[in-house]
């Protein structure tokens, strides 16, 4: 990759030349995207294991699942759903803005996306994990909640923490990627003819949203 400074005074994206084993930048872009979609399929299958565990235990212990779902506040889950949906929109908007060369707007959209990610994590930890964990609503052998009505409630919390914490880890990773894209957009790396990383980061972020679209009703709404 070339360096940022250039005698021609052009930004990195204007001077970007695709890797030599591709015929064109468009072909490179397509290949990168296909590769990333293949990675996303493995992500779906990773969460697929958790969804399958949910399916099995819900089938076996419907009453414990019902009790567990009632111990969650759908208002917090719903708020986080809205936060993630808005962040998905701003992410998609930032791609549009980079494609059009509206760099200031692109940076604002990326920044709002980051803020939404931070808000999601904050709500999750401050209003859900900490209050629940501290009164004993914990997974498996760590369980210490005195008012369980069903013996399998610890199992519910195992699935809950497993699913939501792996999802939250993805939110954090996505935030790191978005921060990187924001920094590099500021530095002039991306523009109308070169925005592969912006789009790929967007795909990752949308996947995080996609997983939550299923986690939210499964954990908070189905009873």
């Amino acid at each position, binding site marked *: 990759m070339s360096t940022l400074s250039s005698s021609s005074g052009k930004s990195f994206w204007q001077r*970007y030349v695709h890797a030599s084993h591709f015929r064109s*930048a*468009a072909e490179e872009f397509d290949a990168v995207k296909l590769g990333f979609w293949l990675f996303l399929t493995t992500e779906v299958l990773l969460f697929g294991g958790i969804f399958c565990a949910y399916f099995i235990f819900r089938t076996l212990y419907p009453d414990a699942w019902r009790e567990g779902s009632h111990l969650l506040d759908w208002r917090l889950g719903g708020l986080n759903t809205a936060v993630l949906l808005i962040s998905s929109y701003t992410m998609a908007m930032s791609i549009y803005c980079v494609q059009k060369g509206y760099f200031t707007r692109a940076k604002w959209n990326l920044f709002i996306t980051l803020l939404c990610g931070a808000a999601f994590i904050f709500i999750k930890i401050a209003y859900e994990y900490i209050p629940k964990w501290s009164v004993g609503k914990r997974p498996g052998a760590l369980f210490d909640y005195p008012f369980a009505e*069903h013996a399998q409630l610890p199992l519910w919390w195992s699935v809950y923490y497993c699913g939501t914490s792996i999802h939250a880890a993805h939110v954090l990773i996505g935030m790191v990627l978005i921060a990187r894209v924001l920094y590099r957009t500021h530095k002039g790396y991306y523009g109308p003819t070169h925005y592969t990383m912006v789009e790929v980061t967007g795909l990752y972020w949308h996947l995080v949203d996609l997983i939550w679209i299923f986690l939210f009703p499964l954990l908070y709404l189905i009873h």
Partner: protein
Amino acid sequence: MSHSPAANSPEVFDEVDPHGQHHYGQHESHVIVGPFMLRSVLAVLLLFTVLTVGFAQAEIAIQNWFGYELPWWVNVVGAMSIATIKSILVMAIFMQLRYDNPINTVAMLFCFFALGLFLLFTGLDLFTRGTIYDFKAGQVVKGGTGQGVATANGVPIADAARDRFKQLIATPEVKEHLIVTNAVRAAAEDAAVHGQPAAAAALNAMADRMMDLHAVKVHTPEAGQQNRTAAEISRMADAMRSAGNAAGADTLAAAAKSIKGLNLAEAGASYSVEAEFARLAAFAHGGEHHHAPIVSTANESRARSGLSGALTTESGRGTHAPAAGH
């Protein structure tokens, strides 16, 4: 595909571009999804979120008001259908699959097919255990042990947590805390009866705070709760007096006095761990359930729908241990 047929020039063979697809331009052939489309999709996604929450709440409302319980699958199918529509929108527009090279869609569809297969075979196993011949059935542990996670001593962990908590509320400090809490609650009821709603609300809020599981379990109470509580109510009385509610302040001052004069030994004699546990459990559930508790009949629904006996018991073990304290 983004390749533009118009750029083909079959006359000259170019070994770097044997198929004649010179799209040497950079990304300009890609579709740019505009703000209007993105905003519309966001609006629809938010609308569907409201819908799915409304759907779940409506089901509870129907059950509470009309006493009619919808079949268990209505909730599941409704929520999952909405989630599927939402995810298709995200993938098609936000993730641009609609405008992309179709191979990406194929990869994702195949992934969902694999996931479906995974869930299908899991379901086949789960839902057909009842049809296994009796002589084979012993090899399959139907529905797990039915005991949940156990401690090292073999006690179900939910029971162990309950027993630990009962030991906790029997300790002198926590006992004092809870006796004082009940006295505050009684004073609140007294204030309400005597037409002092402001004083009653203040005392009830205080009792709520003291009954909260955090107060009892996490911030394990210290000795001397009686005097601290009386002092706090006195301060509340002063605040109410300076706010201009003299009658309310008098009620609070009287409450503070009665808390201070409470005979702990006498009150402790009639203190019952079981009754206190039941009170705290009811409070915890009232605080956590953001809708009226509904009678759990999920197991019966499943029994009716054919997912039956096989999942429930083997050699008399139930799907859940009997719950105590309710």
